[in-house]
C-alpha cells in the first residue's frame, strides 16, 4: 500500500485551512550567495546551446552512417529482416547487439523518444542523440540476463547492457530490437562481461520481473514512477537479480549529463504502487 492509498484521518476544513494558511504565510527562501555562485559557475562551464538548424547538427542519415559505417542500408535491411524472423521463433537465448558502436548510442533512442534533456556529445554538438533508430523507435532494449547485480558490478554490467551483451526478452519488440542489433553482434562479443557475471542457470523466479518488463503499461508506470513523468524513456531494461531477488535494471538518460546514464535497480512491483521503496539501488554510470 502506498502513501496515497493508506487510510488517514482527514482534517476538518478549518484545520486544513489553518495548516494551509501557515504554509502560505512563509516567505520565499533566499538563495545563498554561494549556491548562486556555484550554479552560475556550472552554467558558465556549459557549452553554448546549439540554435535550431545550426550547422553543427549532423543530419539523421549521417548519424546513422557514423554508427554503421561499413554496411549498406540494403544489406542491413535484409539482415535485420532475416534475424528478426529467427529471433521471433527461437527458443532460448541469442546474443544480440543493438548495433551501436557509438558511446552515445543509448541516448539516440532516448532523445528521439522525447527526452527533455538535450544530449550533447563530448564535442558539445547536438548530433546523434537526436537520431531515431529506424527499426524500433520508442522501444527500450529489453534483455533478460538473469545476472546477479551488486553495487560493485553495477557500472560494468550496465555498460554491457548499453553495448549489447544481454539476452533479449522474447517479445515482438525485443525481436525487432534483436534484428536491429544483430548486424554488429561481432562487436558485442568483443565486449563480453567477466565470467563472474555470467547469467544464472535458472530464470524461473524472474517471472515477476519479466512480466513487468514485457507488459508495456506496467513498464510505462514504472518509468513514470522513477522519472516523475519528466519525459525520459528507458535506454535499456534488463531482467536480472540483485543478490538473489528478481529485479529490473532500468537504464535512463541522465537528467544532467549526456555522457552518463541513470541506473535504477527496482523491484518487480515498480509501477504497481507509487512508492520509492521499489528502488533497490541507484547509480549514475558514465557511458
Amino acid at each position, binding site marked *: 500500500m502506498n*502513501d*496515497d*492509498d493508506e487510510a488517514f484521518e*482527514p*482534517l*476538518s*476544513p*478549518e*484545520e*486544513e*485551512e*489553518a*495548516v*494551509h*494558511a*501557515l*504554509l*502560505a504565510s*512563509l*516567505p*520565499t*527562501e*533566499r*538563495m*545563498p550567495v554561494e*549556491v*548562486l555562485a*556555484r*550554479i552560475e559557475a*556550472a*552554467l*558558465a562551464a*556549459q557549452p*553554448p*546551446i546549439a*540554435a*535550431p538548424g545550426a550547422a553543427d547538427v549532423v543530419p539523421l542519415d549521417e548519424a546513422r552512417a557514423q554508427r554503421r559505417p561499413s554496411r549498406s542500408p540494403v544489406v542491413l535491411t535484409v539482415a535485420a529482416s532475416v534475424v528478426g524472423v529467427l529471433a521471433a521463433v527461437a527458443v532460448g537465448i541469442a546474443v544480440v547487439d543493438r548495433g551501436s558502436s557509438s558511446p552515445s548510442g543509448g541516448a539516440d533512442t532516448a532523445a528521439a523518444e522525447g527526452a*527533455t*534533456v*538535450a544530449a*550533447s556529445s563530448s564535442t558539445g554538438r547536438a548530433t546523434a542523440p537526436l537520431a531515431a533508430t529506424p527499426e524500433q523507435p520508442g522501444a527500450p532494449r529489453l534483455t533478460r540476463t538473469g545476472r546477479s547485480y551488486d553495487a560493485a558490478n553495477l557500472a560494468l554490467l550496465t555498460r554491457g547492457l548499453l553495448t549489447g551483451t544481454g539476452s533479449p526478452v522474447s517479445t515482438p519488440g525485443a525481436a525487432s530490437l534483436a534484428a536491429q542489433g544483430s548486424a554488429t553482434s561481432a562487436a558485442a562479443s568483443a565486449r563480453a562481461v567477466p565470467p563472474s557475471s555470467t547469467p544464472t542457470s535458472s530464470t524461473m523466479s524472474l517471472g515477476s520481473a519479466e512480466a513487468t518488463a514485457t507488459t508495456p503499461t*506496467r513498464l*510505462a508506470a514504472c518509468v*513514470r514512477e*522513477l*522519472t*516523475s*513523468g*519528466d519525459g525520459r524513456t528507458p535506454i535499456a531494461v534488463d531482467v536480472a537479480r540483485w543478490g538473489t531477488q528478481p529485479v529490473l535494471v532500468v537504464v535512463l538518460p541522465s*537528467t*544532467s*549529463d549526456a555522457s552518463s546514464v541513470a541506473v*535504477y*535497480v527496482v523491484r518487480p512491483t515498480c*509501477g*504497481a504502487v*507509487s512508492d*520509492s521503496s521499489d528502488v*533497490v539501488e*541507484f547509480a549514475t554510470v558514465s557511458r
Partner: protein
Amino acid sequence: MTGPEVTDPDDRALLARHVSGDASAFSELVRRHRDRLWSVALRTTGNPEDAADALQEALISAYRGAGSYRGEAAVTTWLHRIVVNAGLDVLRRRAARPSVPLPEAEDRVADPRDRLAERETSLVVLEALRALPPEQRAALVLVDLEGHSVEEAARILDCAPGTVKSRCSRGRARLAPLLQPLLGGDRHTLGGNAEASPSVPPVQPHDEALGGERP
C-alpha cells in the same frame, strides 16, 4: 498564482535568446527567479545540501533542454517542474541508500515553542515537511508554499488534479500534529470555528481514484 503571468513574456524572451545563442540570457533568467527556485528545491529535498545539488542538476538540464520548451506553460512552471523532479530524484537516490536515512520524525520538531521568529518558523516547517512522503511534500510545496493552483501543480507533477488535492489533504493531515505548537491548538481544535477558505479545495474520497496517475 500571479508571478509567472506577470513576468512570463520577459521570461519567454530570455529563454528564446538563450536558445538562439545569447550566452547571458539563461543566467539572467536564473537570477530573476533564483529565490523561488531555491525555495522549491529546498522545500522539496528538505536540506540545503541536497537542494543545491538538485537545483544545479535541474538548471543544467533546463539550460541544455531549453529547446524542448514549447511555451505551453509559463517558463516558471516549466522550471519548477524540472526542479521538483530533480529534487525527487535526489530523494530517491537517498532512499536507495539506507545508510543515509532521513531523520526520525519525532526528532524533527524539537521544542518549537521557542521558535517565534519568522526564520525559525520556516525551519520548523521545513523539518516537518521532511516527515512527508516525497510526493505529498512536492504537492504541498507547490500548492501551499509556492502558490500554484492545483491545476498548475498537476501539470508540474504530471498527475491529475484530484491526485494533487488528495496529496495535499494527506500532507496537511500529517503536518498538523507536527505543527501544533505553531498552529496554536490541538489536533481537534485547529482553526476553531473559522470559515474554511475556498483556496483549500477539500479532497473527495474518490479523487485519488479519478486521478488516473497509475494505469
